[in-house]
């Protein structure tokens, strides 16, 4: 990928930074892999529907601008906000007892290698992992100690800015056994930003621990965001992870959650709303490696204008993972003649005593529902907006945290308000 992706400047800047040998070594390894990795094209199964052209023709550099933007702020959530600009930590909030945050570059060699090993063990088959490793701006290790129940939500507020800037970050969230926490990662960009955000997150949920996780890609403008989220669930761990992507040029997130301890429970939901010429691509994989785990996954999308979305949802039940229950559902609405959706739900099953199902639909708004609205005196146009809104809203309503709903709803509202005219034109 080295020839197709021009990151010479970024690499040069990296070489100038002082950092420990073990980290230098790790990045060099990454660079080697990167140069050996073939540039993904339409022929690469993982990238069949998504072009990476928008990453090319730019000389990517690593730069930390001085200007600090606000990013995303929640209302009435009492969250602890930790702010990052182009991958660099810019504030030092006070963390509750039992919660620690370490920068990878501050870690001792032993700790650092543990971090890298944890991150590495979750990786497999994603081309941009090598980019992340090569350019790693910084790693962050957020740990919640055993049995600590963190009352306050923790907000990782990632802000991107600058011209032709590439930022690679790796967050490692670790909940020790019995811990409980809510962690929201938000990504936003300043108006003039022209960036490649390469953000990876690894979630480790220990025995009986419970994590509520939000991963919201809200950057508008000239933003490409390519990264991955991995999760590892131990015995009776519970993870509820919610994803959303709006705006930008290209957004691609690979999500892989592994059930590694019996009795683990996962709820994975997401929303994608490409408009204009935006492309949003979610690839999700649920790995049931052990028996007696449950997964439920719902992703929904609305494609407007020339917007295009790709969804690939894979459920993999390993041999001997008996009594697995896994369900995945993907629903899509196309709002325009030029919009596109490519969806591929996959089941790969090697155990027999399982309950697995997936469904995918592409549809127009339900005519009988439209009629019901009309029969109650609501204009068709209004009904259409309400119904498309409702299609997504169902997932927002299910969120436990009101303030996250409060943040996202107006975003949808403006999106649909803009779309109202379009809607009327296209869905009739």
């Amino acid at each position: 990928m080295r020839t197709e992706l021009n990151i010479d400047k970024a690499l040069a800047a990296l070489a100038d930074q002082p950092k420990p040998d073990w980290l230098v070594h790790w990045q060099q390894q990454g660079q080697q892999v990167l140069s050996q990795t073939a540039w993904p094209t339409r022929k690469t199964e993982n990238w069949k529907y998504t072009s990476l052209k928008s990453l090319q023709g730019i000389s990517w550099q690593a730069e930390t601008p001085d200007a600090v933007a606000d990013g995303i702020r929640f209302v009435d959530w009492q969250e602890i906000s930790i702010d990052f600009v182009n991958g660099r930590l810019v504030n030092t909030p006070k963390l509750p007892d039992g919660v620690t945050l370490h920068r990878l570059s501050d870690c001792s060699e032993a700790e650092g290698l543990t971090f890298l090993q944890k991150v590495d063990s979750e990786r497999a088959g994603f081309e941009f992992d090598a980019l992340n490793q090569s350019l790693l701006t910084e790693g962050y290790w957020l740990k919640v100690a055993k049995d600590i129940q963190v009352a306050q939500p923790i907000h990782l507020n990632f802000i991107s800015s600058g011209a032709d800037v590439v930022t690679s970050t790796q967050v490692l969230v670790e909940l020790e056994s019995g811990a409980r926490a809510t962690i929201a990662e938000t990504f936003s960009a300043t108006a003039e930003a022209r960036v490649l955000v390469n953000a990876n997150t690894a979630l480790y949920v220990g025995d009986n621990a419970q994590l509520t996780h939000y991963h919201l890609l809200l950057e508008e403008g000239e933003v490409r965001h390519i990264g991955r989220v991995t999760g590892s669930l131990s015995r009776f761990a519970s993870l509820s992870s919610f994803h959303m992507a709006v705006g930008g040029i290209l957004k691609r997130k690979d999500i892989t959650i592994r059930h590694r301890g019996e009795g683990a429970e996962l709820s994975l939901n997401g929303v994608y709303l490409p408009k204009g010429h935006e492309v949003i691509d979610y690839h999700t994989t649920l790995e049931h490696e052990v028996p007696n785990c449950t997964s439920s996954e719902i992703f929904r999308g609305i494609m407007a204008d020339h917007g295009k979305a790709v969804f690939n949802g894979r459920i993999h039940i390993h041999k001997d993972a008996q009594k697995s229950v896994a369900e995945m559902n993907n629903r899509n609405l196309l709002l325009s003649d030029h919009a596109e959706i490519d969806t591929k739900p996959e089941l790969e099953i090697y155990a027999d005593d399982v309950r697995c199902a997936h469904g995918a639909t592409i549809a127009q708004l339900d005519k009988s529902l439209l009629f019901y609205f009309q029969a109650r005196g609501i204009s068709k146009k209004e009904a259409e907006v309400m119904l498309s809104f409702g299609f997504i809203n169902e997932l927002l309503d299910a969120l436990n945290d009101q303030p996250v709903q409060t943040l996202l709803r107006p975003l949808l509202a403006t999106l649909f308000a803009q779309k109202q005219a379009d809607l009327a034109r296209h869905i009739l």
Partner: protein
Amino acid sequence: MSEEVKQYIKSEYKAGFVTDVESSTIPVGLSEDVIRLISSKKNEPEWLLEWRLKAYRAWQEMTEPDWAHVTYPKPDFQALSYYSSPKSMEENRPKSLDEVDPELLATYEKLGIPVHEQEVLAGVAVDMVFDSVSVGTTFRAKLADAGVIFCPISEAVHEYPDLVKKYLGSVVPQRDNYYAALNSAVFSDGSFVYIPKGVRCPMELSTYFRINEAKTGQFERTLIIADEGSHVSYLEGCTAPMRDENQLHAAVVELVCMDDAEIKYSTVQNWYPGDAEGKGGIYNFVTKRGIAHHRAKISWTQVETGSAVTWKYPSCILKGDDSIGEFYSVALTSNHQQADTGTKMIHIGKNTRSTIISKGISAMTSQNSYRGLVKMNPGASGARNFTQCDSLLIGDRCGAHTFPYIESKNPSAIVEHEATTSKVSDDQMFLCQQRGIDPEKAVSMIVNGFCKEVFKELPMEFAVEAGKLLEVSLEGAVG
């Protein structure tokens, strides 16, 4: 899972005998000369030889695909013979069925196929393809009365050159894929069907493919043309002897379905699946595709119980407005069988509709995959697809997989896809046993029930045959 079901399956392949006839088989190996030889044996016109050579050259430049969910040693194309015919079919070619070597006909009789027109069950016209040649076709005269052409494609080349020239390769181009290119270069025999405008074919048509010789491949080529407003139901059956080495069957089937016509194409595929250790069996790499014009309907029904490896996606190009495509499939794999099968529905015209019902059953250590594509092109306004893929697992060492690709570029198109995976439940087994039904019978009933939606699409006689075939594959399950 109950013990009974676990101990399941030790199938006995009933079509595994060898017919003892003298054959003339060309030496192994593939080259332009071999293709010339095949062409000259069939006395083909120059254009067809050129057509074959073009395909051969294209094939040489292609590389054998690596499919995600099947693994097998790649065939050695130089170790196969590409043409084999019973001697009796070569010199003094029989002019009617009565002159055909009784030993050959006995092969088909043994398989339960009506080879004489006077037989009671003979509501069906049969073309019998033995290795590389057709040994006979029944009811040709009766069909000709209705204007229907049903004959081996090798004859059609001579008797209906215009039709063959026009449509051969029109749905599956020579370089469509690796095995289609190979088939185009070396294809031997298969059936040719033409139904004239407005004609409803008066009887079921069928072709039985039999591989007999060792170390040969069979390269069937079938072309069915249903002219405007016509209707035909066609069935193919396939069997082969039990042999320790793998044999290759690489077929191409093309369907041309003109305005308002309907083609119903059913397959009962029972190629030798290999033994319990995974030794031997047929590699079944098949390209089947139909094109449907305005208001035309193509319906594929398949029951796949055989072959060591199956790779096959009978597809519909729904080109005309209001055209309909259907795919009903039962694929049962056991022992070491691998099946990767499904369909492609390409919606081009307005208000096109497609239905996909796929039932996969995997047992023992087999792997069974559904792979499909539903594509809504920008012009496919008002198009609809419904897909239901169900998998049934029997035993905990097999795999069932579903890989549907769904692409839509039209906001008024509606696609619905559902897939489930389950096993024969202990509760169902107990209910059957409590009512006195033995476990083996219970499994076979439950599996048959699971497949019912597909079986009901088969012509009557074949539905019964298909049910029996499943039962045989489920036989010996209970200890």
